[in-house]
């Protein structure tokens, strides 16, 4: 009797819980509190926090991790068991190294398979399919100049790249930290998984938390860099954009971006496919699926898969703190450069001025950053409706960050 119980207890997980794992339990609870009580990107932070909790529990059959010779930790490993069959016609030319493997058994934990959605770079582009189906690029097409504000908002990315490399991060890691300033979850996860998978947890948590902090981080910077007169600038109401224009926009943006940064093709093509089926008006069934089924289901799996990488020994490291600090800097500089470039545009073409407050909306986090510009503008002139104008740079920022990610990939990725 006793011997059986003793043996059973040797299989339980109590002995494997380290104090670091308890700290991670606390981190997960704090993230859950931020998401539920403070409304910090709940759709992402709740699954991420839950994944982090599971990552720091002595589970069996959920995730397999291995420490590689060079110290890096590799997770989501599974085994294929099968019989090597002789190739059908071995003699034929070009059949030299042909191998036929009859797979009899595949073994792995639940998240060894679900996390492949991240490792194979499938979830981010497919979520961008949904984001494209939810986004209206009308305001941007009506005022194409705001593209420059979307580009300006990427300055924070590159400045933080320098900051990170100064703090000792490798070039690949510095790029993954800089991308946080782009305020686009899928793009950040897409890039970080390719360049620095070991930072995935920290980068995702920083990116999604800062997106929720936009209403706190941006207003002080916007007020600091703008004069009272500039804040009251009223802009002409946007012209109505026709369906055909929006369809042409989707195809043109896809062609230009893929030609310039082929490495961002997966993200850009899915973003524009989602937008195209939204605007063309004859694919209602597909739009509904992209906006709901696809994006909701993948968000649960993306969030938990990111959380599962947040193991105590890799997350509770100095790098994580550096990343959190650098993340704020990235957001700060992106906001500032958006506003400054808006002021520059007024200098260059004073006749139809741009209210600099919409510059900060270049930091995507659609549509929250645009809402912040609108609310900020109303503080100085209650009848100044900036929302639609701010949506221009807001959605331009999504394209800007994808292009920046493409640049990082083509220079550092291969």
């Amino acid at each position, binding site marked *: *009797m006793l*011997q*059986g*119980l003793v*043996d*059973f207890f*040797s*299989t339980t*997980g109590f002995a*494997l819980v380290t104090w670091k794992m308890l700290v991670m339990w606390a981190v997960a609870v704090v993230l859950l509190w931020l998401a539920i009580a403070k409304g910090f*990107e*709940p*759709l*992402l932070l709740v699954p991420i926090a839950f994944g982090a909790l599971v*990552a720091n529990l*002595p*589970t*069996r*059959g959920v*995730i*397999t*991790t291995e420490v590689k010779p060079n110290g890096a930790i590799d997770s989501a490993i599974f085994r294929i068991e099968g019989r090597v069959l002789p190739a059908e016609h071995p003699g034929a030319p070009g059949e030299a190294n042909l191998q036929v493997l009859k797979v009899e058994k595949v073994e792995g*934990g639940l998240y060894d398979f679900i996390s492949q959605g991240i490792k194979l770079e499938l979830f981010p582009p497919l*979520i961008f399919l*949904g*984001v494209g189906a*939810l*986004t*209206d690029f009308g305001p941007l097409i009506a005022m194409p100049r705001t593209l420059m504000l979307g580009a300006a908002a990427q300055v924070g990315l590159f400045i933080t790249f320098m900051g990170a490399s100064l703090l000792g991060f490798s070039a690949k890691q510095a790029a993954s930290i800089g991308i946080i300033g782009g*305020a*686009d*979850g*899928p793009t950040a996860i897409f890039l970080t998984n390719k360049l620095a998978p070991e930072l995935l947890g920290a980068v995702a948590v920083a990116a*999604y938390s800062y*997106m929720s902090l936009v209403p706190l981080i941006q207003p002080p910077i916007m007020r600091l860099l703008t004069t009272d007169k500039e804040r009251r600038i009223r802009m002409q109401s946007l012209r109505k954009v026709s369906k055909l224009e929006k369809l042409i926009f989707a195809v043109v943006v896809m062609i230009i971006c893929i030609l310039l940064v082929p490495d961002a093709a997966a993200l850009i093509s899915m973003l524009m496919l989602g937008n195209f089926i939204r605007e063309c008006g004859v694919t209602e069934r597909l739009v509904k699926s992209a*906006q709901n089924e696809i*994006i*909701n289901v993948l*968000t649960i799996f993306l969030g938990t898969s990111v959380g599962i990488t947040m*193991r105590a020994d890799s997350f509770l490291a100095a790098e994580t703190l550096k990343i959190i600090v650098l993340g704020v800097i990235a957001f700060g500089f992106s906001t500032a450069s958006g506003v400054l470039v808006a002021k520059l545009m007024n200098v260059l073409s004073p006749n139809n001025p741009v209210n600099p407050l919409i510059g900060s909306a270049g930091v*995507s*986090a*659609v*549509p929250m950053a645009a*809402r912040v510009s609108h609310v900020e503008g109303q503080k100085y002139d209650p009848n100044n*409706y900036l*929302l*639609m104008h701010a*949506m221009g740079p807001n959605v331009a920022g999504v394209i800007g960050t994808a292009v920046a990610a493409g640049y990082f990939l083509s220079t550092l990725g291969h």
Partner: protein
Amino acid sequence: MLLSSPFFAAALPTHPGIGETIVFQINGLLVVFLALATIWGVLELTGIYFRRAAARAKATPPPAVVAPAPLPGLPPQVVAAISGAVCVVIDARHRILAIAPVTADLDWAHEGRRQIFASHQVR
């Protein structure tokens, strides 16, 4: 992370004898009761805290909700119809505080803006 579970010494042979199965059973039951009893214990603790919190809340009556004085001259069926419509549109728990005639002509613009605000929280 994957526990390289220690080889379970006294693992049951493929065809265990009666004695072994009985021991195996009882151990199994003990483990199930142990797990659920631990949860029971924790729930009793949290239960005490939350029962006290609920009692305290009952002591301090919630701020008296003054009944919304219906607009004079508004027939009751119209009030009923309006609250019915509100109930259909706001598909969640809500309370109608006041019914006022439309003044500003910006309402549909606000509605447009509201839709953009709520357009998507997934990023």
